[in-house]
């Protein structure tokens, strides 16, 4: 075999004084980074196999393991850094595109961290969430121009709305890209908390129909698992036009992940690759989208809001205005830092724009056109905590989509190897030996904790601003100030600089 120039990324340090050779690590590592040496009667490790998912470290009963970035270093070079060189070795060896998982991890500015929140002092009392109710309930869907009332009664019912107890939903993750237990965790949490999860383009597994009230069913370019029962099973339908992690790129679920359950749920043959084309083959312009929107509304008798999800790209504002006028009830914008089960590294790291700017631009544009109330805006693409959510709402979002945060709560350690299907945490895998590691009851408990913690924090922040209902923050950019931002960024965000 020709020379192999790949170097281990991590090194596994096993404290021999602590290791009791119980083999828990060996049993748990799906990459065989640890194994038992029968002859020596000890457990040994192979650095080159380690992906730093930390499963072994977490389960090691004596905490004998440490995973570190590998000591081996290339000659320091600001331009030709280690990553650059290693990527070339990899491609020189394989001739293939580089693949990766989860969101863009490059060092681009994170605008959330350059935005500060306001709080009441003297002239306006802050509100104590422990004493006064603070409301997070949010309605997603097109709102009428005006409410018509006849002799005290609502004359016309509202267009279909999603009623959320907290303006946070779980973004699209398909059964196939994630395990059924991960899907169950999302579904169970959504229904327990009173929000929505999203099937992604994975169809709806039979076990999940019972969570329909809290399900957004997605229709994407591959149309996998789409049928009338499916469309009517959820609370809303989402047309996926794009994804922040890979704008302009389709999806590809390798055949080995298409087991019996996935194949029957997606309605594709066992073991065949599931390829979602880059474009919808029936959508080549905005009016085509309009047709699909109304086709879906017809199919569900106008009883379900239709959402359109797109990746944040350069002329996002104009596109969203078009989508709003095409009849979408909800527009979901996915920023370039959004996660993925698998994407070409170059695409993930170089295409799209930050969600913060995209959101601000879209909200302003829709207001300028006086059609902001016609659609709800949902933004996603690396919402990391409750402050990000509050800032997003103040910039104009009706609700946010989270995925990575949810997976982390379930146990994801961000090793970014989702595409290998060997997720040691039972999340991004279809291997029954790994899937069973994610107990949906535990996952749901942790995910509910996370959302409850976030809503406590959001209420604290709202109360501090003297606001006791989230809608009074929505688009209320006066509550935001920028720090360390340039004028054009402030202008796009529509906020003043701190101190102004």
């Amino acid at each position: 075999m020709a020379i192999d120039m790949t170097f281990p990324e991590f090194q596994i340090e096993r404290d021999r004084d602590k290791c009791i050779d119980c083999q828990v690590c060996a049993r748990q590592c799906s990459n065989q980074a640890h194994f038992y040496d029968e002859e020596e009667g000890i457990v040994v490790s192979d650095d080159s196999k380690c992906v730093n998912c930390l499963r072994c470290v977490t389960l090691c009963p004596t905490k004998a393991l440490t995973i570190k970035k590998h000591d081996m270093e290339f000659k320091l070079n600001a331009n030709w850094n280690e990553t650059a060189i290693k990527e070339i070795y990899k491609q020189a060896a394989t001739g293939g595109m580089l693949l990766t998982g989860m969101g863009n991890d490059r060092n681009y500015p994170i605008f959330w961290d350059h935005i500060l929140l306001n709080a009441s002092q003297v002239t306006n009392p802050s509100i104590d969430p422990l004493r006064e109710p603070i409301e997070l309930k949010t309605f997603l869907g097109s709102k009428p121009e005006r409410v018509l009332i006849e002799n005290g009664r609502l004359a016309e019912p509202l267009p279909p709305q999603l009623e959320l107890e907290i303006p946070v939903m779980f973004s699209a993750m398909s059964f196939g890209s994630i395990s059924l237990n991960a899907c169950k965790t999302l579904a169970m949490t959504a229904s327990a908390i009173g929000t929505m999860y999203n099937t992604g383009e994975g169809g709806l597994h039979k076990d999940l129909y019972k969570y329909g009230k809290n399900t957004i069913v997605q229709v994407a370019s591959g149309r996998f698992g789409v049928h009338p029962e499916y469309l009517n099973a959820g609370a809303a339908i989402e047309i996926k036009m794009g994804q922040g992690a890979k704008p302009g790129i389709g999806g590809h679920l390798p055949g080995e992940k298409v087991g019996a359950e996935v194949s029957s749920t997606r309605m594709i043959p066992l073991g065949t690759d599931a390829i979602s084309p880059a474009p919808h083959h029936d959508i080549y312009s905005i009016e085509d989208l309009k047709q699909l929107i109304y086709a879906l509304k017809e199919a569900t008798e106008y009883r379900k809001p239709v959402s359109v999800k797109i990746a944040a790209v350069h002329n996002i504002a104009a596109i969203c205005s078009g989508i709003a006028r095409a009849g979408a009830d909800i527009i979901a914008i996915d920023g370039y830092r959004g996660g993925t089960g698998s994407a070409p590294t170059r695409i993930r790291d170089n295409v799209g724009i930050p969600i913060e700017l995209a959101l601000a631009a879209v909200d302003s544009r829709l207001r300028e056109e006086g059609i902001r109330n016609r659609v709800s805006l949902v933004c996603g693409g690396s919402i990391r905590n409750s402050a990000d959510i509050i800032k997003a709402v103040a910039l104009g979002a009706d609700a946010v989509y989270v995925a990575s945060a949810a997976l982390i709560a379930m146990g994801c350690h961000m090793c970014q190897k989702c595409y290998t299907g060997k997720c040691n945490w039972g999340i991004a895998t279809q291997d029954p030996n790994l899937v069973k590691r994610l107990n949906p009851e535990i996952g749901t408990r942790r995910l509910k904790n996370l959302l409850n913690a976030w809503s406590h924090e959001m209420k604290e922040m709202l109360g501090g601003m003297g606001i006791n209902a989230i809608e009074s923050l929505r688009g209320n950019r006066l509550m935001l100030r920028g720090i360390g931002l340039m004028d054009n960024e402030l202008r796009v965000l529509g906020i003043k600089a701190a101190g102004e």
Partner: protein
Amino acid sequence: MFTFGESNRVGAHISGISENFSEGNMRIPAGCAISAIANVKGIPFSGKAIRDSIANMRERSNGLGGGFAAYGIYPEYKGFYAFHIFYEGCAAQENTECFLGENFDIEVGGKIPTRKVVGITDAPLIWRYFLAPRVDKLAESELNADEFVMRCVMRVNSSIDGAYIASSGKNMGVFKAVGYPEDVADFYMIDTYKAYIWTAHGRFPTNTPGWWGGAHPFALLDWTVVHNGEISSYGANVRFLEMFGYKCTLQTDTEAITYIFDHLVRRHGLSFEVAVATVAAPFWDDIERMLPEKRELIKALRATYASLLINGPFSIILAWGNGLMALNDRIKLRSLVSAQHGDNIYIASEEAAIRTVCPEATNVRSLGGGEPLLVFIEGIDGYGN
């Protein structure tokens, strides 16, 4: 620097301080005193009582703004829109009168009579016009008269430098200035007017000298609002209103509140009760306990007009041609008291301000959060009926 809408420079020039610190250039939180007296039978009475009432709360103001709204003061011109306009110079007046001439038939125009008062300085030119939209202009605008007038007012206030329309309703007017309210009353000779509804405002802005246009009541068409508080939902409210042609040039809560009611009541034809259920909406917990029909209605209101929920502390007195409404924010973060004597209704930030003009007032009560006090004047028609 980013601002909402266009800035209005009148006040800056008058008060002679850097424009960055005047209304229209930034949000100005303010504490205040408010008061109102109305005769439910519609019998006009002199402004003396309201002057004394608001004067009683002098320490709630700081001399940086005071004003009065009076309804029923121009019976002889009740068919015409009465514009009270501040001019910061002849140029402004010429531009404005030229604009008015293009769009209105001006019945009468002239200075508003004032008397010299020590506490009042830097007075602009204060003119009053009784006018009606020109039939041809109205026709080509395809708007109703109120809408037409409103847009003209917006136009003047936002685009004619140095001109500010302080009042634009019928058979009513707003008299305001920089100073303590009682001085403002004497300056405008409030005691010489007879109205069946009086509202008054004494201002305590927390960071600028204030200016004439920025003093309260704030008015649009027949609407006037006096308000005490600072609404934390301002940004949300305003960005919503702006979608419907309102230009919140002053960036004051009062202005926004006025537009909210104009939008809900005059434009969308909602009743005051429904409007209140929108701006001071019940909590979801309470909504869940309502009867299905009502629950659906309130849900629809909160969902549709979510951005018009007024959050944060406020006590307002909203007045219009045939009535007035006192309202507190839904968790009652500001004081507001009402009382009655005969056909007179009294409302004020403090009970003392009522007692001082009507010691024998009865059923004095503090308004509950989000529970409006609605008063309609008999035999007069206007919004909401």
